[in-house]
């Protein structure tokens, strides 16, 4: 059974009707084909209608859809070969972050991504995609390896945040993230960052600095989750919808603000409706962007990367407004 979100109820109702009719027909009852076709068309229409008018909060819900494909699904589906590597070489292997070599045709890519888990057991094992410092250190180790082999890095960001736990603090969560921001700014291979689900705060940014940032259509990227923002600024948990609006966290906003470089289309209804198609689109986009990035000489690419981040911000200097968008 597929899972329907609150705003998908009208679709669920139509789907239930359709299933009902099909069962009746199977039992030999007289159901005209036109009726079935009509309801199928209605479903498509409804889907389009709903998905073209999603509120930011609804997009946040979609990004967390329990059936939404995650990093490992994409890697297993779109790579012609995929070899996962493990460990930070400092005593730990964090299952919240996965990474390794992937082959797209004849192109080797170092993939690094967060994996939230697809069932209760896996979610616990992967700490819901909330990495500890060792996750970021594993990621950095893999990036250095990519640099050694001259292979591009593609990161698949999907996390509700870095883990706020005691051990994480003891082992230097802040330092691990800061180190990655620093090293990613100067890594001598192209880096392509793709938000495939949730892009929450420093935990996302810890594998999220690169030459280009892309977002899939039903994802978000923000300094804080709408829930935490509500709890801090409104001092309760009830303003997450307002917070989602205020944070301007959807791909279209961030594209207009020139924070991200492109939006990747998803199948109508979201990646979970047709994961294979979503993986195919993702693969195509990765290859397209990598081709463009690899044409730029590395020193120029690095200068551009630094300049990209150097510029970001909006402020007033004297009477002049300076804006990066």
């Amino acid at each position, binding site marked *: 059974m597929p899972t329907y979100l609150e705003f998908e109820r009208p679709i669920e109702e139509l789907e239930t009707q359709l299933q009902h009719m099909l069962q009746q027909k199977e039992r030999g009852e007289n159901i005209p084909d036109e009726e079935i076709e009509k309801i199928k068309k209605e479903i498509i229409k409804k889907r389009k209608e709903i998905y073209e008018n999603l509120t930011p909060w609804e997009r946040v819900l979609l990004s967390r859809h329990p059936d939404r494909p995650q990093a490992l699904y994409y890697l297993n589906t779109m790579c012609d070969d995929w070899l996962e590597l493990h460990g930070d070489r400092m005593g730990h292997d964090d299952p919240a972050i996965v990474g390794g070599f992937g082959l797209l045709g004849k192109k080797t890519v170092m993939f690094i991504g967060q994996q939230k888990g697809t069932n209760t057991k896996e979610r616990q094992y992967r700490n819901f995609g909330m990495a500890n410092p060792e996750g970021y250190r594993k990621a950095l180790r893999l990036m250095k390896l990519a640099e050694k082999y001259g292979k591009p890095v593609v990161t698949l960001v999907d996390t509700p945040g870095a883990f706020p736990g*005691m051990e994480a603090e003891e082992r230097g969560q*802040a330092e691990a993230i*800061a*180190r990655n921001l620093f090293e990613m700014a100067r890594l001598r291979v192209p880096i392509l960052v793709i938000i495939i689900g949730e892009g929450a705060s420093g935990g996302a940014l810890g594998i999220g600095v690169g030459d280009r940032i892309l977002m899939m259509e039903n994802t978000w990227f*923000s*300094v804080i989750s709408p829930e935490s923002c509500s709890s801090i600024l409104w001092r309760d948990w009830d303003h997450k919808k307002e917070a989602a609006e205020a944070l301007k966290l959807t791909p279209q906003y961030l594209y207009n603000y020139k924070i991200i470089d492109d939006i990747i289309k998803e199948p109508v209804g979201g990646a979970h409706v047709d994961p294979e198609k979503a993986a195919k689109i993702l693969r195509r986009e990765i290859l397209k962007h990598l081709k463009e990035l690899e044409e730029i000489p590395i020193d120029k690419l690095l200068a551009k990367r630094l300049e990209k981040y150097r510029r970001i*911000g*909006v*402020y007033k200097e004297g009477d002049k407004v300076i804006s990066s968008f």
Partner: protein
Amino acid sequence: MSWFKKIKERAKQQLLPPPQKKDTPNGVWTRCPACKEMLSIIDLEQNWHVCPNCNYHFRVGSEVYFNLLFDNGKYEELFDDLESIDFLGFVDRKPYSLRIEEAKRKTGLKEAIRVATGNIGRNKMVVAAMDFDFIGGSMGSVVGEKFARAAEYALEHKIPLIAIPKSGGARMMESAFSLMQMAKTSAILTKLSEAGIPYWVILTDPTTGGVTASFAMLGDVHIAEPGALIGFAGPRVIEQTIRKKLPPGFQRSEFLLDHGLVDFIVPRHKLKDTIIRLYKFYKY
């Protein structure tokens, strides 16, 4: 404790005069929150806001650090005409634009960071110091930009950069733009590394969130004031996550020293000395 004793305790507490008013005709005394000793504000100021009785370090702003570090308290402030604007039209319980105005009025500051240059032990350096009173020392576009310019100033003049972070984290009201300041401030530091320009961090109370997870943890050397809260997640968030009370001293400077995240803990009046020594090690 039985319920009536609790009430009695509370009643007793209410009978106590508010700390600043005791024996104070015009607020020249204050109570140390750590040892509860009454202290003369003048004495406290002369001791760089450190309790002479128990060594508790009061939270202070950029001005105190500038006076403490620069020779004869002489310095030139840089990039001080940069100000925040509410470009997203962010409204929570109040508009961001109003928060900016209120912070300016309350603190007399323009932003949560100030950059200054001057001599420290007769050597020119540049210092970027944060003010917690300005919207919780949060990092938005202006903090990121001023930090970046401070780094470029250090690069251009080939002088050390000293950061004194003090922050609750990224400024939510600038959303993705404030998140990107983490990348911006970290990225600029790669240029200092490449050029061999020293970058030292003095960690003060409190430093958490996006500031810790960027430029505050990227120093060549990390100096911490005693007892400062330094971490990624705030203690409240951690307690909510693990559903346990945190042990005393968790995320304090001494804890960070134990876990290899800072090089040493230095009392406030020795900070300048330490910087001068570091400079010698760099130079000779």
